[in-house]
């Protein structure tokens, strides 16, 4: 009896948290999305979302988020693999994580300096004979800086799952005559796929709604759904349209979560 009572007491903070910071905000976003700019209830915002402007924006958000995730993965997986083989792996891991302690805005401003016309990157290009290029405010700089920011979040889960991998399994594969590539393809990668999945999730989902970098690094030449939400809330004060975009982002994110999880059940 007492046990049940204490268990219910323990539930209170959790339930309160879920109610106040998950259910209520989402309900509010949904509620606001049904109001047009003059405060009338309507489906105007949803109609507007299915116009070429916003569909195009959704497409480009997807494209950039995909690029950022794919490049992060390509760099992070070998890096994590290498880290697990080093002697002081926790130290090396720490060195990769340290930059994520620095404020994002500060890092973005640093990159404006590095990528600028007279910045370090361009002086280097000049020295090696390629000559001055526009780097800042291009797709390249946007993807580069985003990858730089997201890579610790991709490495960490992959590193953890690689670290937990039982080394005797690899020995077994070797003993049974599997080549290094086959071992990787048939043993290591399938056993760390969960780390890859969660790495991709924590990269792709925030990358979909990046906004500050689109202005600071891409000079508003890249417009994502996040940029549009920011503008609708802060400048236009069209909370309805901003909320509608947020609703679609939530739907997209839920779909992605579901898709990556059902596959897991099939394995």
């Amino acid at each position, binding site marked *: 009896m007492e046990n049940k009572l204490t268990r219910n007491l323990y539930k209170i903070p959790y339930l309160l948290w879920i109610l106040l910071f998950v259910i209520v905000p989402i309900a509010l976003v949904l509620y606001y999305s049904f109001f047009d700019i003059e405060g009338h209830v309507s489906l105007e915002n949803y109609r507007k979302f299915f116009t070429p402007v916003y569909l195009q924006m959704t497409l*480009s958000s997807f494209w950039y988020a995909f690029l950022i995730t794919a490049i992060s993965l390509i760099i992070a997986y070998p890096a994590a693999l290498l880290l697990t083989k080093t002697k002081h792996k926790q130290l090396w891991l720490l060195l990769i994580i340290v930059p994520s302690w620095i404020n994002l805005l500060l890092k973005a401003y640093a990159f*404006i300096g590095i990528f600028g016309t007279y910045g370090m990157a361009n002086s280097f290009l000049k020295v090696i004979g390629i000559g001055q290029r526009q780097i800042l405010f291009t797709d390249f700089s946007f993807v580069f800086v985003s990858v730089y920011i997201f890579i610790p979040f991709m490495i960490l889960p992959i590193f953890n799952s690689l670290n937990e991998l039982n080394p005797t399994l690899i020995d077994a594969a070797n003993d049974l005559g599997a080549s290094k590539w086959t071992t990787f393809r048939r043993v290591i990668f399938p056993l760390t796929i969960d780390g890859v999945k969660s790495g991709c999730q924590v990269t792709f989902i925030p990358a979909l709604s990046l906004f500050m970098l689109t202005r*600071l690094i891409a000079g508003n030449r890249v417009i994502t759904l996040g940029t549009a939400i920011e503008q609708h809330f802060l*400048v236009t004060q069209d909370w309805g*349209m901003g909320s509608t975009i947020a609703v679609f982002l939530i739907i997209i994110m839920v779909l992605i979560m579901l898709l990556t999880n059902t596959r897991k059940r099939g394995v």
Partner: protein
Amino acid sequence: MNKLVRFFLIIAVSSAVILYAISSLNTSRGYSGGNTLTVYNWGDYIDEDLIKQFEKETGIKVIYETFDSNEAMMTKIEQGGTNYDIAVPSEYMIDKMRQEDLLIPLDHSKLPNLKNIDPRFMDLPFDPENKYSVPYFWGTVGIVYNPKMLHGKKITSWNDLWDPDLKNQILLIDGAREVMGMGLNSLGYSLNDTNRKHLLEAKAKLDRLTPNVKAIVGDEIKMLMANEEASIGLVWSGDASEIMYENENLDYVVPKEGSNLWFDNMVIPKTAKNIDAAHQFINFMLDPKVAAQNTDYVGYSTPNKQALRFLDKEVVKDERFYPSPELTKKLEVYENLGKRNLAAYNELFLQFKMHRK
């Protein structure tokens, strides 16, 4: 467990010590109860010596706080946590704040120095008869450019920016009214135009500017222009004077077709506790000598006609910052177009941003 308790204890004790230090510092400097005045202004937008002078003359202690956007300022005043006695919003915000009932009417009998303001800048559409506000500084929207990088090419008109030679040379400020206004002005329309056809025409014209646009940025534009990252920038005159202070190669022009005229204004918000002191402060800032000293420090254009006598002749004659009467006639103040029209401006601006080269 013990460690955890100690951890929280240390935090609690140090917070208490800091709190005590703050309150004792405040009392030692005389900030107590009724004789304080809280001023809420843009960052680096007043000569701090003038605050000391005001404190000495009146015995009122000034608490000075800053904000970096009109929207942030309005939100804080709406919430009402701090008793701001003076705020300095831009003109389009005054209309909004008045509608939301956030302003206290001014008592003109307590502001004898109001007569010093140039009549041109009194009784403007955003605040008829200056019932709620007194202009603090004013300025324009225009083009800051780098003659060295343009090889002597002169910029005098909005349409000069569409020159195909200027590929990737232009930085725009990230503001829907400013950029759409440029499009409208370049076609000879008013920047308060709400005719759908004219707006679409302006947006189509802006799309053709895209190859020349390097980026659309915020406050970073000051740093980028001063670092010669681009040769042309669409900026407010206030930013232009700061950029030109940083890099003397640059020049500023208000395009001949006309442009925007903006004002920052002193108001007394609803949160005010010391309304009498607030009037004293406004009147003090309107004193010609004080206004001149402040203008000297801030570098923006003063609306105080009597203050012009105390300023450098060169500054006052500089048509870039004190435009000639003919040009001034072509300058327009942003009108509050209503939510629906503003949304249309923002929507078109968003589409312009998405237009790729």
